[in-house]
């Protein structure tokens, strides 16, 4: 049962990933990317990492991709004016992605498939996550939270300052 779900999700993720690249319409690309994120979130759930799955959806699908879509919607007001890329860029793109593919294939050949029969653990549950975060990784966690808070306060300040300049 779990196997079948795994294969389905993997197939979905790969298909969606390919469609991201191959669709002409950037809005469709973004939507396929969201689908890919969902498939990956499904994988997390299979690993019993519910927290990670939900955060993945909230952050990636719910916020970042919305912003992507937001921007693309404005750019794509008329699709006909999309400029044709020169052949040179396409050539470089093919070479670079070929190199990346070789790298991945090489890396995965060395990899032992030890995760395929991962036992059901509760490590991904929020309680355990919290315990780990606040015991083993207290310092990094606090530093990151301060960083985030600083970023948030900074952004609010910037927004306020902008207003003051306009006035």
């Amino acid at each position: 049962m779990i196997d079948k779900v795994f294969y389905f999700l993997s197939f979905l993720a790969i298909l969606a990933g390919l469609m991201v690249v191959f669709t002409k319409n950037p809005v469709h690309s973004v939507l396929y990317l969201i689908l890919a994120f969902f498939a990956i979130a499904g994988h997390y759930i299979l690993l019993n990492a519910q927290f990670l799955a939900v955060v993945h959806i909230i952050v990636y699908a719910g916020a970042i991709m919305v912003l992507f879509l937001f921007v693309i919607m404005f750019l794509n007001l008329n699709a006909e004016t999309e400029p044709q890329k020169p052949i040179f860029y396409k050539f470089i793109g093919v070479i670079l992605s070929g190199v990346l593919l070789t790298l991945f294939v090489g890396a995965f050949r060395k990899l032992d498939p030890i995760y395929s029969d991962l036992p059901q653990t509760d490590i991904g549950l929020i309680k355990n996550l919290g315990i780990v975060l606040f015991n083993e990784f207290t310092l990094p966690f606090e530093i990151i939270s301060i960083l985030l808070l600083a970023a948030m306060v900074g952004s609010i300040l910037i927004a306020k300052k902008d207003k003051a300049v306009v006035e």
Partner: protein
Amino acid sequence: MDIYFILGKLILIVIIFAISLLTAMYSTYGERKIAGFFQDRLGPDRAGPWGILQPLADGGKLFFKEEILPVNANMALFIAGPSLSMLTACMSTAIIPWGTYLDIFGTKFVLQVADVNIGLLYIFGVVSLGVYGVMIGGWASNNKYSLLGAVRAASQNISYELAMGLSVIALIMLNGSLSLAEISRNQGESLFGLSGLNWNIFYQPLGFLIFIVCAFAECNRTPFDLPECETELVGGYHTEYSSMKLGFYLFAEYINMFVSSAFMAVLYFGGYNYPGINFVEANLGHNAAVIIGLAALFAKILFFIFFFMWVRWTVPRFRYDQLMKLGWQILIPLAIFNILLTGVGIMLFDN
């Protein structure tokens, strides 16, 4: 997993689905009737006694109306938009605890579809997806008003999700759990000598205020109905929609309203708890207490739906930049302040 468990859950899902659809349906009627009453009018009163068949008539009308598909619209996405809206709106009912459990012939029948331990995060996940329906539909219509509506909806939802999340964090700190069942159970304790009155609203009034404002914004209700404000954007993201696709959008809005009312009731107003729940349980039995609790929860939900409408028919709406300013410059700092306050409170009183 035994068969009864699955069967019970299935029944529950069907019932909850039916109830949320029915509530949404009658919310449309309620909206019109309540709007009428607020405005010294009677509202719909022709279809059936007091017009109670009006939602059926509306639904019938929406189903049989001519379907207009704009020529230059992106067909697949044009259809996907309302469907997504409807889907995400219905998904979040899954984790609402409608009661503890019913004891039917010795079998425990839990009145919650899924008690996931990330309950609150699940809500945010689903809610953050809700904007896609609006965005996709607005973009696919190939209409500038729709696009403006979609863009407004997107930025509004993202902005207010943040403040909403921050306001709920204080609640999580207080309860020590993300599970809605757990939060509801915590609120069943006694306060002022009354059992079932340990509601979070008494500890988190500021958090509730932020939450309800954000809930208004997430549901695109006045004063935050900029994505669909008629006087500016004609119909906003659903300008080009007609027949049942339009119906889906409107319906999704009412389901969202139902769901967010339910969450407000569960998170802040004790959920299925009501004053004197222990007394009832001791005297009338467990099942009676649970059913009264269910009724109490529904009363709270209906009150919040009424409150949504009440506010809608009273206040003007914000302007886009003022909305952003309120969200980013007022509500988020306020929510952070609320977290600090809660932290200090927990430190002082819990020890």
